[in-house]
């Protein structure tokens, strides 16, 4: 049922004529996030620039019984901001103020629309940085990061978003503004801790207080080359077993290497079966020793070569190859689908073999990109999107891999979230009582279910539209 014109007038009176988009091609960009198998166009997109405007908009929706979906930069990869059956989208991308920087407390207060990388840019001259670094960090916003509890390559040592957020300001689905304090010894339940990663189903995050870290004295990036993924996985275990916690420990297999080499010309060995990108940070006086120990662990696991990035330029190129690997995959196939699963790190060799078998059985090429140190795998299933039958095989293969992750004691998502994509896997991941408990928690915040319905929990949703997936990143 279309929105009543009086309601649209009310929205306009809150955000002004420039803060509301309706009809026309302007809304096309809002039809999906990085998960492109489903699309839907909202009736209006609202672009508030203050928390009070968000509150007024949400209050209106609440009073009128209208469903709404929050959106950050739309870089999510599980359809968390898909407006399927939801007429109103509230995008926080115009809320870009940095409210306060406090170096004495090592905190920064930012609004939801501030871009992840911007946080580090604002403080790096003073020697600080914000640790969570999803691959999309030059575009994704803090509001979205908080909603998704975003990770990134450096979570191995430094943790994910939730470990770096000390307070959030949120507009509840009834329109009320609350601050959820997470500082040490703050009394009461850690509601903020649960809201982080709740995928926009408990309210709209409008601002957050983030923890800043002091830049380490020394950073070294190593590239270790292996004949195959299994020996690279063994090296991962050997490094962890040696009691070393690298800042990042990433793996790319031959297919990914082929794509990124073609795109960025780093100079990866053409015959490599897998590479590890290992970043170490810490005190200058200790870093060489650490490199040596890592080198030994890699060699003992069969590395043919361990190369230390010679300078900042080489280091940056190595990371560019890794972080933009998703973008490079378009060179290998007309389309690809990124999966996101987790296994206990010791089971990496096993899941890699399982993925290969799944690929063979479904006649699909699957490339492997992993936050190997965390056991977080990103199999990239390559396919031809003009082939309907192949698309079905892609979906089946993805589900089979994720179910294998669960059987090995892992998870169906390490950082991309459930969104709409994986609602069908929640029952594989949790017993019914645990899902009921999550719904109980949701009902405290979102009793009428108007805030981002259809996400996380299994429902009777049907696909809105199946179209060509565009290259999509994540992690």
């Amino acid at each position, binding site marked *: 049922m279309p929105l009543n014109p009086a309601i649209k007038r009310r929205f306009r009176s809150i955000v002004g004529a420039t803060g509301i988009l309706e009809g026309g091609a302007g809304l096309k960009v809002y039809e999906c996030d990085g998960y492109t198998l489903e699309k839907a166009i909202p009736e209006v997109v609202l672009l508030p620039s203050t928390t009070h405007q968000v509150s007024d908009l949400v209050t209106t929706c609440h009073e009128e019984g209208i469903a709404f979906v929050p959106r950050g930069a739309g870089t999510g990869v599980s359809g968390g901001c898909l407006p399927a059956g939801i007429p109103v989208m509230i995008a926080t991308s115009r809320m870009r103020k940095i409210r306060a920087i406090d170096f*004495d*407390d*090592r905190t920064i207060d930012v609004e939801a629309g501030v871009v992840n990388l911007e946080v580090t840019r604002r403080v790096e001259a003073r*020697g600080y940085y914000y640790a969570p670094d999803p691959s999309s960090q030059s575009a994704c916003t803090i509001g979205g990061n908080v909603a998704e*509890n975003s*990770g990134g390559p450096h979570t191995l040592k430094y*943790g*994910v978003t939730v*470990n770096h957020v000390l307070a959030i300001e949120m507009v*509840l689905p009834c329109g009320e503004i*609350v*601050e*959820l*304090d997470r*500082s*040490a*010894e*703050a*009394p*009461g*339940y*850690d*509601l903020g*801790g*649960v809201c982080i*990663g709740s995928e926009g189903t408990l309210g709209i995050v409008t601002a957050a207080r983030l923890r800043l870290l*002091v*830049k380490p004295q020394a950073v070294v990036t190593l590239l270790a080359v292996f004949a195959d993924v299994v020996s690279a996985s063994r090296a991962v275990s050997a490094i962890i*077993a040696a*009691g*070393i916690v690298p800042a990042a420990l990433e793996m790319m297999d031959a297919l990914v290497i082929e794509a990124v080499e073609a795109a960025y010309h780093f100079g990866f060995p053409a015959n490599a079966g897998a590479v590890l990108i290992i970043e170490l940070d810490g*005190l200058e*006086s*200790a870093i060489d020793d650490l490199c040596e120990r890592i080198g030994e662990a890699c060699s003992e696991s069969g590395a043919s070569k361990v190369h230390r990035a010679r300078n900042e330029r080489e280091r940056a190129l190595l990371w560019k190859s890794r972080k933009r690997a998703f973008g490079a995959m378009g060179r290998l196939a007309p389309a690809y689908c990124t999966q996101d699963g987790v296994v*206990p*790190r*010791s089971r990496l060799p096993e899941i890699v073999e399982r993925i290969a078998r799944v690929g063979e059985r479904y006649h699909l090429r699957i490339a492997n990109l992993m*936050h190997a140190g*965390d*056991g*977080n795998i990103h199999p990239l299933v390559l396919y031809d999107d003009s082939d309907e039958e192949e698309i079905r095989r892609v979906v089946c293969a993805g589900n089979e891999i994720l179910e294998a992750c669960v059987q090995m004691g892992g*998870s169906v998502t*390490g950082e*991309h979230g*459930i969104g709409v994509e*994986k609602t069908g896997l*929640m029952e594989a*991941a*949790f*017993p019914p*009582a*645990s899902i*009921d*408990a*999550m719904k*109980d*928690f949701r009902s*405290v*915040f979102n009793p009428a279910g108007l805030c981002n319905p259809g996400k*996380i929990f299994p429902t009777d949703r049907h696909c809105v539209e199946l179209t060509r997936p565009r290259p999509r990143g994540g992690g």
Partner: protein
Amino acid sequence: MASTRNADDTTSAALVASLGPGQVRPGSRGEAVDGVQPHLVITARTAANVSTVVNEARANRLAIIPCGGGTQLDRGNPPRCFDIRLSLTGLASIIERHGEDMTVTAEAGVTLAQLNRALASRDQRFAVDAASPQQATLGGIVAANSGGGLAHSFGAPRDLVLGMRVIDGRGRSLVLGGRVVKNVAGYDLPRLFTGSWGTLGVITEVTLRTHPLAPQATTMRLSFEDPASLEHARVALFASALPLAAMDFSTGTASSSWTLQLRIEGTSSEVDYQIDRVRSLCASPDERLENQWLSSVHANTTSDLVVIGVTRPKQCVEIAEQMFAAARKHTSNVSVSAHAGLGPVYLGCSTQGPEQEIAIVTDLRTVTGACRARLLVSRCCAQVKPALDVWGQRPESFSLMANVKQRFDPDGILCPGRFVGRM
């Protein structure tokens, strides 16, 4: 919230029948919480036992206080009623050590010392320091989200809990989170139960993230004549790239100086470098204690009154100084300590009874209130508690919290009256 009634002989008999006579006995005065004596003390040996007790309590509206090593039962408002003291210390198995994965799964009654002994054989640890590691259980540490100084670098328990099993106040057996270090499937409910002080459910099992044991470690103590020079050092260290494992400070009426206590870990070259760097940044007398770490915050466990000023790192020295001065006006035996990188300030003092405790807390609340900090009462005599909410003023999100409590413990059987806002 529903009121509860006392356990009678019928319920007691029913519990004995389901659990076995060795697990149920009458409570004693020594097992009282805030002066309220439990009618029954039940020792659970399995999660199924916990489930039985919770369901029996629901059916009969009995109040349960779950309890591990009992090291933190002082925290909280007085229970509205107290029928069953449910001991989890019988759930004491380490279920699985996943050495290569750096995770461990253990029952709630395993003590911190027991876990860390087991992990040490693989050069690992659960990086939490508690005041009494021999008594403190994993369930208790997680329920209280209470770490110590090591939270400075490793995070609080809530950052180290990957998953748990809980029997909630509705009697549901919940499997929450997982056993991998990265997981965003569904809501992160382990975070809800961590720090919920047993008011939403009884934790029976936890899966924790472990860390490598440091090859070398030392504790460095630096003395400062006054809070201003301590603050100077704190700022310098906090802004440095030194990966200090812990950074606490303390002073007291028994001490003539302010002491900064640092935990330094790493390879021997990393440790040596950090010591040198600390010396050049702080320029004050220091001593080293080889391989022992006791957070300054845990040093004083005998005070009559213990309070916590909840504040930010940049205010902690100033607030500690003001709290110290305010308490000294009342009593001659005061100590104050803080986690300098995290914020909270802990003050302990001896007192001459309830009137004096109320007067001290009132004065300290004025001091902290002026700095927009909150003051919690961690320990005091039971008679004082009815006069003041130990958690202080209700947080802004209190109505949400009360609603959460209602969903997970609708009959109000878990620690009724003890939490924030006397829920």
